[in-house]
């Protein structure tokens, strides 16, 4: 009942939020007309007024930004073993492409280390290359940013910029082999069809990539389906890269070009401080020159309690069945522990193996509370390399990446 009301309020909030942003766009057109390039106002906003219709997303996703869209999934909505499309977070760096035509979509492969320049239609990708499906974790590098102190720049993600869905497509390796790759290949860099927020047509929004060794892994996909359906537009329709376990920004969306590079790719948001952390740890708040920043590769070990939602009130003697997922970038989660006494004691609980490499792993536990009062249930995953989640926020970095501090939910037990 209370939950229903909350949902309704939330929906109402989103609706009014959208109306406000709709109004703001119109208002901006009038007030700041001269600053706004005419192609900047997203068509989808003008033609619709509910978030679920706009982006096919669950109405309870948290809207961090609506221009560009950045939506976070509350932890309790990530309870499914395989994240449904409508509960997948959205991290957009620019404006989404419009009038996408999957039938005429073409992928270009080029670059210094490409044997030749090739254009492959999406249709050919689907028909002529072998189809592969994997469940893969995509987590934004900045997930958890809102806990850093001093505050770190960018969207203030909480817990839920993470997903693990079933991706289907072709192996990037198969496409690179078809194209032909020179011996000096070092990196692949992607380009997508999204457009820059400034409205400048020739300005690339984001163009990142991965080293060749990651590009050639079995699970590295050029994906055209999410959970057996076309990918939602906000998540990269009609074609995107998926590199499980690496920062979401490597998994480029709306992909229309891949460059095989003979050096570390140098597209926008590869350099500077973007998606990089200090090569050597620094004190909180320290200035770090760009040349001392290193590119993030595998994401760290992490876990989420996805059931129950934080704030559960229990009767005395009622035990609590919790569920959640754990993941560790390129590694495996080998141990899962739960604490109800602020980390003074931990109890191990089983964690399942992943359905495939780079998928998240599920855990369950039953928790009993010795007496009434306020509790926090903490979850801590450890990788097969013996690395565990910290209980406080890990090493500070200027852009607030890689916060893998253990997840906490609040519980009250009635007398």
């Amino acid at each position, binding site marked *: 009942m209370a939950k229903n009301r909350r949902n309704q309020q939330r929906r109402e909030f989103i609706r009014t939020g959208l109306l406000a942003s709709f*109004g703001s766009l119109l208002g901006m057109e009038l007030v700041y007309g001269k600053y706004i390039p005419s192609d900047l106002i997203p068509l989808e906003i003008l033609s619709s007024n509910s978030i679920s219709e706009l982006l096919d997303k669950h109405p309870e996703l948290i809207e961090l930004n609506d221009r560009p869209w950045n939506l976070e999934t509350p932890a309790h909505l990530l309870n499914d073993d395989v994240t449904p499309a409508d509960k997948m977070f959205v991290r957009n760096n620019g404006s989404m492409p419009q009038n996408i035509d999957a039938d005429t979509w073409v992928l270009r492969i080029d670059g210094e280390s490409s044997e030749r320049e090739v254009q492959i239609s999406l249709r050919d990708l689907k028909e002529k290359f072998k189809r592969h499906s994997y469940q893969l974790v995509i987590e934004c590098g900045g997930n958890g940013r809102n806990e850093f102190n001093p*505050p770190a720049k960018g969207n203030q993600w909480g817990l839920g910029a993470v997903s693990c869905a079933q991706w289907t497509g072709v192996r990037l390796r198969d496409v690179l082999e078809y194209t032909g790759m020179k011996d000096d290949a070092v990196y692949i860099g992607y380009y997508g069809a999204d457009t820059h927020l*400034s409205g400048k047509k020739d300005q690339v929004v984001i163009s990142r990539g991965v080293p060749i060794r990651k590009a050639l892994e079995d699970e590295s996909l050029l994906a055209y389906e999410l959970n057996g359906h076309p990918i939602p537009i906000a998540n990269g329709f009609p074609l995107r890269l998926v590199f499980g376990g690496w920062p979401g920004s490597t998994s480029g969306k709306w992909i229309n070009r891949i460059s095989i590079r003979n050096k570390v790719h140098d597209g926008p948001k590869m350099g500077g401080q973007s998606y990089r952390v200090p090569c050597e740890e620094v004190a909180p708040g320290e200035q770090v020159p760009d040349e001392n920043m290193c590119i993030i590769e595998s994401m760290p070990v992490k876990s989420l309690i996805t059931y129950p939602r934080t704030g559960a009130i229990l009767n005395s003697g009622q035990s609590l069945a919790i569920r959640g997922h754990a993941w560790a970038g390129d590694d495996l989660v080998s141990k899962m522990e739960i604490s109800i006494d602020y980390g003074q004691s931990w109890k191990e609980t089983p964690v399942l193996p992943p359905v495939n490499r780079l998928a998240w792993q599920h855990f369950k536990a039953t928790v009993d509370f010795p007496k009434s009062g306020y509790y926090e249930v903490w979850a801590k995953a450890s990788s097969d390399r013996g690395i565990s989640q910290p209980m406080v926020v890990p090493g500070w970095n200027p852009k607030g990446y890689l916060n893998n501090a253990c997840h906490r939910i609040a519980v009250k037990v009635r007398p």
Partner: protein
Amino acid sequence: MNHQDPLKPISKLMPLFILLAITTTLLFGLVIYTAFHGEPGFGNNKAIKNNPHKGLEIVDGVDLESGLLATGDYELVKRNCTPCHSGKLIAQNRASKEGWRSMINWMQETQGLWDLGQNEEAILEYLESCYGPEKMGRRKNLENIDWYELNPGN
């Protein structure tokens, strides 16, 4: 000579009376106008029509259109800082003046933000005072918990 027109003193005061009446009316009008200016449902249309900044609406100190705190030089900030992205991206960040300056420099170097000229200082002051860093430890208490009954059967 000594005979005085009984109305004369009054007529002498007449311009004063008129002046007083006009001032009172004006003052009253002003009071009414300021009291209801911007209040939804009363004279709002007129207020907006007369307002050079169309669509300005402030609720609880927040400019609804941009989501920015409506104090100080916020219109300057709104004009320069919301053409590309929404104000939500600004309002969710916290930084010192130097931190804000480095974000602005980054946008100027890589994202096409223009030179803010002499407005930069005012923009930075607004940003620092409205969206300065908050004191927090290595980990916050769990906050804004929405408590609910968990049925044992669930």
